[in-house]
């Protein structure tokens, strides 16, 4: 008895863990790291604010309170009656616009990651499994993309498509998903290919092939589930990069188009008069910073959770 109690008092991490399955274990490890929990909390908080906020704020992002601006003689400063964060020079409520920016940024980040998965995972699987010309072509292409700042290609694609009628759908949101997704899948494809190559060598896969399990079934039932962890990690680490890309695009006037707001376009709009009306720039700047920290922490936490060896070293 005494021995068992002594064992109970040991640090939980040294005990052999009872496994509850791949995802449950990873999630439990995520919840044990303070940074991961903080990241998760920030991200959930952001999503809640982005969804609920616009319902609570009495103004929409495009409504103009012109009488107030004329009466005051310029953009209203923060804590004005009715406008908690003030307004821009057109009388649009800054809180409402920052919240709309949150919706835009989160939507772009998540949808762009879906595009990345939709292209990157199949290409990586096929390249890794089949080899041959698909693999060679893919690897040469990823070499080119990887040796070059992603954002420059993304900016070029946006600049090329943003003025066309089709991509004006959703105020430029569609063009932004496409531009980010078309370049960012490369990293995921590389990762999935590497994962597939190493899984291909394993005995169970070889056995499955030997007894004649159809290839499609092997890839779906054996390879894909085992590659899901790294894919999840890569996706969550890609989100802050996508958010930064989106706000940089909007800052350059290429992302989300008027009247919708994005943190990047709000910063661009306020930056010329920043010393006179700093309150126009601070809310989107702070929101962007919080989002970047939140998703970075969450991504780091996910990486450690899916690679317990690495997390124990840290």
């Amino acid at each position, binding site marked *: 008895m005494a021995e068992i109690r002594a064992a109970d008092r040991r640090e939980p991490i040294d005990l052999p863990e009872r496994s509850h399955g791949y995802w449950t274990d990873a999630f439990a490890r995520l919840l044990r790291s303070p940074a991961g929990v903080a990241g998760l909390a920030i991200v959930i908080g952001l999503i809640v604010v982005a969804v609920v906020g616009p319902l609570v704020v009495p103004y929409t992002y495009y409504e103009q309170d012109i009488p107030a601006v004329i009466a005051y003689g310029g953009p209203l400063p923060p804590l004005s009656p009715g406008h908690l964060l003030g307004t821009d020079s057109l009388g649009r409520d800054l809180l409402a616009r920052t919240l709309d920016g949150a919706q835009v940024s989160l939507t772009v980040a998540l949808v762009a990651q879906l595009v990345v998965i939709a292209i990157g995972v199949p290409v990586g699987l096929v390249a890794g499994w089949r080899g041959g010309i698909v693999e060679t072509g893919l690897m040469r292409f990823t070499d*080119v993309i990887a040796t070059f700042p992603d954002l*420059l*290609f993304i900016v*070029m694609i946006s600049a090329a498509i943003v003025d066309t009628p089709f991509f004006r759908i959703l105020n430029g949101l569609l063009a932004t998903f496409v531009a980010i997704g078309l370049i960012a899948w490369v*990293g995921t494809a590389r990762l999935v290919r590497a994962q597939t190559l190493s899984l291909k060598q394993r005995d169970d896969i070889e056995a499955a092939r030997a007894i004649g399990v159809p290839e499609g079934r092997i890839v779906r039932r054996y390879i894909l589930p085992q590659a899901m962890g790294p894919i999840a990690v890569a996706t969550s680490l890609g989100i802050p990069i996508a958010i930064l890309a989106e706000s940089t695009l909007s800052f*350059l006037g290429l992302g989300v188009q008027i009247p919708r707001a994005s943190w990047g376009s709000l910063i661009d709009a306020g930056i010329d008069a920043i010393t006179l009306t700093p309150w126009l*720039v601070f809310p989107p700047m702070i929101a962007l910073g919080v989002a970047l920290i939140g998703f970075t922490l969450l991504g780091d936490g996910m990486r450690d959770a899916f690679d317990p060896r690495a997390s124990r070293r840290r």
Partner: protein
Amino acid sequence: MLLGYAIRRVLWVVPIVLGASIVAFTIMHVAPGSPWNREGRQLSPEMVERLTAQFGLDQPLPVQYLVWLSRIVQGDFGLGMSTDRYEVAEVIGHAIGPTLLLCVSAFVLAVAVGVPLGLVAALRHRTTIGHAATGLALLGMAAPAFALAGFLQVVFTPDYGAPPGPLTLPPELEGTLRGWVLPIVALAGLPMAQVARHTKGSVLEVLHTDYVRTAHSKGLREEQVVRVHLLRNAAIPVVTIAGSILALLITGSIVVERVFDVPGLGSVYYFAIRGRDYTLLMAITMIYAVVVALANAVVDITYGVIDPRIRDGSRAAPESMPGG
């Protein structure tokens, strides 16, 4: 041995840059829409036809590419596409100096602050000092160039009638500060954080290796362990991110130069995008491509110097960080 490796690696730059140029050229020319009738500008059909012929846009795409490539190799970047014609090469020639100075200074600053910060965060892991260093690095992650640039603009308000900020400067310092110091700091923030995070991770990893434990147990002082065993081995993963740091500097410089009105390549790029000037855009993109590809070559050769296992081929160079 190392020289042979270096030469092979530098030669590899050529196909990479060619590949990048094909991708960029295709994106630019396959896209729908023409560069002429934009933003309310209405040109007559004859005018459009003449401009299209003048810029060779009626030729098949591969022909256009080869013509463009052969000119660019000779240093002829062509004419800008906006209303006032200018030699692209001339514009870039004026702009490249400020950007180079800005980026190199920011790189030096990011490494000079980031490496010690990451080292402290790792060696004092789980202490107050360690937490402070980690927190500082995390704060840098939240400061992409345009956020930090805007913040610095407000803190150091110039003295032209605006309500003074917390720190208004004497006019004689104003120019240097606003022209150089603030842009460099704004640009260095995010790279600094990346360097610090990466250094911390890689030092922590090395700290738990057997050879460091052995070094400790045979009685070396900590400072000796760090100097002899830790720094060299921890340096390899840190060198890996030099390429993605460069990417951050290039994209960051576009924003920082716009905020602080630095007349560099980033500002030119910003206006090329705003004006959809494809000639100018392609030229700048190719310059960035060459610089980045060469920098990656230098990084790989540096691995060879740090770690002999890489240059004799018994160990592959680590792949660059994705998402740069």
